[in-house]
């Protein structure tokens, strides 16, 4: 095993303040634009402002992670895009409920 030391790295926090374009979203997820658009049509992610031309669409940073999760669910479990969208919504709900539970305890 090799071991190498690398300089201090700074990254980008993928949060609400970080808007990314459709092209960037496709690149981050290694997915062609048509497939990302299908995910958008199924509500997996939403452009911040959807009433403008596609080339101007901007997405929240967390969209990258949602699409990456959807890709894994589709590939590993054989669900279709709508199924992945449903799973993601239910997972969001479970996460919110778990959070409430941990506060109350």
């Amino acid at each position, binding site marked *: 095993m090799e071991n190498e030391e690398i300089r201090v790295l700074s990254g*980008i926090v993928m949060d609400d303040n970080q808007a990314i374009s459709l092209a960037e979203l496709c690149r981050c997820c*290694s997915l062609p634009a048509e497939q990302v658009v299908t995910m958008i049509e199924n509500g997996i992610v939403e452009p911040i402002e959807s009433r403008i031309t596609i080339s101007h669409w901007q997405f929240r940073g967390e969209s990258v992670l949602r699409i990456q999760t959807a890709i894994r669910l589709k590939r590993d*479990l054989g669900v279709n895009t709508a199924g992945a969208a449903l799973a993601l919504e239910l997972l969001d709900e479970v996460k919110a409920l778990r959070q409430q539970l941990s506060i109350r305890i």
Partner: protein
Amino acid sequence: MEYKDYYQILGVAKDAPQEEIKRAYRKLARKYHPDVSKEKDSEERFKELGEANEVLKDPEKRAAYDQLGSNWKAGQEGFQPPPDWDAGFEFHGGGYTNDQSGATDYSDFFEQLFGHNAAGYSSSFGSKHSGYRAVGENSHAKVFIDIEDAYLGASRSLTLRSTIVGEDGRPQLKERTLNVKIPKGVKQGQNIRLKGQGSPGNGGGEAGDLYLEIEFNPHTIYQVNGQDVSLELPITTWEAALGNKVQVPTPAGKVDLKIPAGTSSGKRMRLKGRGIPGKPPGDFYITLAIVLPDKLGDKEISLYKTLQQETSSFNPRVKLGV
């Protein structure tokens, strides 16, 4: 080498029909998928399931595997396949198809039997599936920080292990250390993207990105909810009754809090903007809890008795109808 009982992993009998194997795999895959499951070892379990399925779903591989005999127990060491164990078996299609990336994550047991390129398609979590694309895969890792780090920012040194394809074409583990800056104001579950720190690209392609997921270490006194932080603050009975200025710890340091006179236990107070920093910052919530000493002194007991005799009109349970 450790023998793996693929039937046991999928929870099916050795004579299970192909349909049943398919069902068992799908059910368990949904249960242990790392994006879905909260169990700690879900990633390991999921990989194991994928490997078992890879062998058992393919009648050719399954027959070859069955031929190894049933004397082997799961986890038993010292397994070596007989030299001509696969004679007479021909693997088609899903057999020796080269996985483009080469770096699949199967166990030694699997590789010994079917070779490291035997996985026609790989279903293991986070595995490469890039086909002919030259861009490297994105990698994911978790980084644990303290709540205080989210207030102040921090640097973390992480050691990441990744599988890369060696010069001889076989996958090998490579360890590398990264020093990463954790910016101020990160929240639980948020990801930091480090461009170009994922897996290297194929054929001169760009490297993928590394995503670091932020996870807070559990804290003894603080609780975090998104950007808000909360704390339970113990106070005395007289502080609750008469009001007082007390010190409150926050991850950014101590602050003074004025408890108003006549405060009941359970009252929630908010320090605006004292949560995790950001634009806007979160809030800091304090829940007051009246606490009595473990043992009351004689003086205290007599004072409480006076209080009891002279304020008998107060009934805190009036709303409960008793």
